[in-house]
């Protein structure tokens, strides 16, 4: 089944746009939040602040991920050395085979 998308491009119907998935998730979370507000199992003053707590937690998680990733950032200084060796080897061969290896014309 095929339908015409917004820019006149064809699209297969069973591919849901990512933004739709995100919106659906937000709607589901909002519904949960509203039902919590109305059920008064949790004190209202706390429930009102839940979205804020969620956003702050998300932010903290993001910062944590950045920090952890930064600490574990894979580096490869030995590769720079190997590359220099490769360059020397390449220049030798190329010079012998008629290729100009100067960096300026």
């Amino acid at each position, binding site marked *: 089944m095929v339908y015409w998308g917004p820019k006149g491009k064809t699209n297969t119907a069973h591919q849901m746009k990512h933004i739709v998935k995100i919106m659906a998730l937000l709607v589901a979370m909002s519904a949960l939040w509203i039902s919590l507000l109305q059920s008064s199992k949790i004190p209202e003053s706390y429930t009102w602040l839940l979205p804020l707590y969620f956003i702050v937690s998300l932010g903290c998680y993001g910062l944590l991920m950045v920090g952890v990733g930064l600490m574990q*950032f894979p580096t*490869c200084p030995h590769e720079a050395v190997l590359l220099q060796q490769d360059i020397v*080897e*390449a*220049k030798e061969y*190329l010079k012998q085979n008629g290729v100009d290896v100067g*960096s*300026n014309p």
Partner: protein
Amino acid sequence: MEEKEENKYSIIVPTYNERLNIALIVYLIFKHLQNVNFEIIVVDDGSPDGTQEIVKQLQQAYGEACILLRPRPKKLGLGTAYMHGLKHATGNFVVIMDADLSHHPKYLPSFIKKQRETGASIVTGTRYVKGGGVHGWNLMRKLTSRGANVLAQTLLWPGVSDLTGSFRLYKKSVLEDVISSCVSKGYVFQMEMIVRASRKGYHIEEVPITFVDRVYGSSKLGGSEIVEYLKGLVYLLVTT
């Protein structure tokens, strides 16, 4: 009757002022792909430093069948450079890589092996996993890279660890399909390609690669790049 599979790999290398690097890259590709059927397609955007003359010398040294020079009159952008190269590609697989030696041809066999083992439509190089890595980035650069990556992962759920990487192997038909639906420029274009491919359900595999930042020449990352990146993220969030 059993048919021996004949795979040919078309390696598209866009260049602009890569007079020295293109020769080194070609040498290294030949060194590491010795029993592989491949061709190198150099898409040069009218480099004033004589890159095209060097390519012609390389053609004399290695043969014109393996090195194709398909130039363009001026800088016309990366996406169109790939499309231009694709038009001349005769392989059933296409590799895209940078000409500045940040992508080392020694990883080409591992891309090919991974594709053969898994039957993937796309094999993308990732710098951010064990076995991969980056050299030549200061702390600030690593921070922006990591921050950008976390943001992109949170918003886009792309299914790959390195979104802006441009060292990739594609099945030719897959690249043709994906590239026709991408409109961004620069490295956002690389992100758009892999995200759209992921959304379309293509089988994507990753191999670790090491990335040694620009040996000869100058690299670019400033405030305007960051703004472009954020705009690109929002665009991808909404349209893919």
